[in-house]
């Protein structure tokens, strides 16, 4: 990295962290600390919601997914607009009416304390781990590509987030996220323009898209009914809606964002804004990966992008096998280069017959290259079984480091670190608040005064920050990073959503039946995860459905008093 990159990177981070601390200095009221003064406008809420969801993994793994598998991953987000509408119409008004600080507070009003604290505990476990992953995931990639020590990278990201999250609470998180989101969107837009500008002059945008299509990267929607295919229209619309309902409706790191709204109207608008913008944004990020793929039709790509693992293999006894694979891969690329040029000539000459025959050959040589790459990945795993199994996570950052000009490299690194910080900040903010509201103030010290409560909330936030950094430092290798986070979420989110749905829509169901239904449904989802190959988006549907069905059954066989339901409108 050059001096200009360091200046851009450090300048951006220092400005955002400094602004967050300065703008929110002197908060003395614990309510304002946790709810941000209840004065956020819709655009702050909307950007904050988006920045919370957009972790660094979004900007590292997503272009990699575009590079490897094309645009199909966007189907995962089809449920977001639907969920935004459902939440705006149902859950958000209830949260406003019941004046809660956390989503789980509502569950005590509706059911009982044990149901509230069970769901709050599930949240703490899941989000605590999630915060660790949101630090660890970018840290491992940044360390590999840039040669930074992993522990130092983890500690730096963690420390920067802890500073402003602890200092300014919810308002600091929301305020900084606006600027972090601006850096992220601006950085990715520039990346998009730059990747395209690196293509040969004779290649038009239409050529690039068409070439990506020929090589299977433009398959956005998949209507197949397979339950095993991870991303289809159906899994996106059903499982994706359930994930989004659970994530945005019951995960305190998101609920806290829109509960900071000036009014119900601002909160609803912020959610709907997210519903409108989320899919195009994700598609744009995936498309950057597709353009990188097109770029590597003209420039020879490495057979393995994770340079650390490649070097490890090259220094092992397996080195001759890797050299052979590299040479095979280089031959396949040369063969492909000839075909790519022929294809371009045929396309520009409108020669349909030649185009069709070249496309068939191109697909065949592409499949050959993919097979060689798969064998190289197997070799990496053989030499180091703990190596990250998904080389595609390294594609985008390796590309940035190798081809981006000075200054833009620093900006793209700032994008990744801003994303890591924004997702982690929301998580720590919510973990601190939930620890305070649902456990400390509720069960341990109900008569705690304002100053002590503020100190304790800050203490909990620091504690969760330390837990997250600790988990990040000791995290073992995980499957594809973005999918690991989504799978982790899906295991817990289904039952969590089920509890809230029973609370909202089944007025006769009492606390004890729903409590036991949640525990059993959670066990069921974990059993399904451990014993079947069903796509992970379906866990949400199964977990949620199991809570609803079991709660209704238990409610008929268990005796007890029914609490009056809180009406939807």
């Amino acid at each position, binding site marked *: 990295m050059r001096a200009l990159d360091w200046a851009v990177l450090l300048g951006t981070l220092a400005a955002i962290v400094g602004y967050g601390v300065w703008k929110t200095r002197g908060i003395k009221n614990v309510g304002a600390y946790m709810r941000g003064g209840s004065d956020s406008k819709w655009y702050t809420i909307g950007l904050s919601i988006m920045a919370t969801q957009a972790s660094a993994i979004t900007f590292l793994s997503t272009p990699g997914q575009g590079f490897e598998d094309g*645009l199909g991953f966007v189907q995962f987000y089809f449920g977001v607009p639907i969920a935004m509408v459902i939440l705006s119409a149902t859950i958000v008004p209830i949260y406003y009416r019941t004046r809660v600080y956390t989503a789980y507070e509502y569950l005590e009003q509706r059911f009982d304390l044990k149901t509230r604290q069970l769901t709050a505990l599930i949240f703490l476990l899941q989000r605590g781990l999630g915060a660790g992953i949101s630090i660890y995931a970018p840290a491992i990639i940044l360390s590999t590509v840039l040669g930074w020590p992993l522990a130092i990278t983890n500690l730096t990201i963690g420390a920067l987030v802890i500073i402003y999250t602890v200092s300014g609470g919810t308002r600091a998180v929301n305020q900084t996220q606006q600027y972090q989101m601006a850096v992220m969107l601006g950085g990715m837009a520039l990346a998009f323009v730059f990747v395209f500008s690196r293509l040969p002059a004779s290649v038009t945008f239409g050529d690039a898209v068409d070439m990506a299509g020929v090589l299977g990267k433009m398959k956005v929607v998949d209507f197949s009914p397979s339950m095993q295919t991870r991303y289809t229209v159906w899994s996106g619309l059903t499982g994706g809606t359930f994930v989004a309902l659970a994530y945005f409706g019951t995960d305190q790191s998101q609920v806290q964002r829109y509960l900071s709204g000036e009014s119900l109207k601002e909160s609803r608008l912020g959610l709907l804004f997210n519903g409108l913008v989320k*899919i195009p944004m994700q598609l744009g990020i995936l498309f950057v990966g597709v353009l990188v793929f097109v770029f590597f039709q003209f420039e020879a790509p490495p057979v393995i992008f994770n340079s650390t693992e490649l070097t490890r293999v090259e220094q092992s006894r397996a080195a001759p096998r890797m050299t052979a694979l590299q040479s095979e891969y280089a031959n396949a690329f040369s063969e492909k280069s000839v075909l790519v040029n022929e294809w371009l000539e045929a396309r520009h000459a409108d020669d349909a017959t030649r185009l069709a025959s070249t496309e068939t050959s191109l697909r065949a040589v592409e499949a050959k290259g993919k097979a060689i790459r798969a064998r190289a990945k197997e070799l990496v795993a053989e030499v180091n079984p703990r190596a990250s199994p998904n080389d595609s996570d390294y594609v985008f950052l390796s590309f940035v480091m190798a081809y981006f000009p000075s200054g833009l490299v620093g900006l793209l690194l700032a994008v990744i670190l801003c994303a890591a910080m924004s997702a982690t900040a929301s998580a720590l903010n919510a973990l601190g608040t939930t620890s305070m509201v649902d456990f400390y103030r509720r069960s341990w010290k109900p008569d705690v005064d304002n100053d002590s409560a503020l100190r304790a909330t800050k203490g909990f936030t620091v504690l969760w920050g330390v837990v997250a950094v600790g988990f990040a430092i000791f995290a073992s290798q995980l499957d594809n990073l973005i999918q690991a986070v989504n799978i982790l979420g899906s295991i817990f989110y289904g039952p969590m959503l089920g509890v809230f749905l029973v609370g909202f829509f089944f007025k006769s169901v009492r606390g004890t039946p729903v409590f036991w239904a949640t525990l059993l449904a959670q066990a069921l989802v974990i059993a399904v995860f451990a014993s079947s190959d069903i796509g992970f988006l379906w866990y949400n549907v199964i977990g949620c459905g199991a809570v609803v069905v079991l709660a209704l059954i238990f409610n008929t066989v268990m005796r007890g008093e029914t609490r009056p339901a809180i009406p939807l409108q």
Partner: protein
Amino acid sequence: MDGEDGPPFFKSWSGAYLFVLVWLAILMALFAVVTRVYT
């Protein structure tokens, strides 16, 4: 709390919700066309 306030540009929240869902339908239709044309 001004929870009953309507959204800007729309007469009611139902209109705003419908707009978001129609937007999703348009995006999905566009994606289906892109998939059909390019694969």
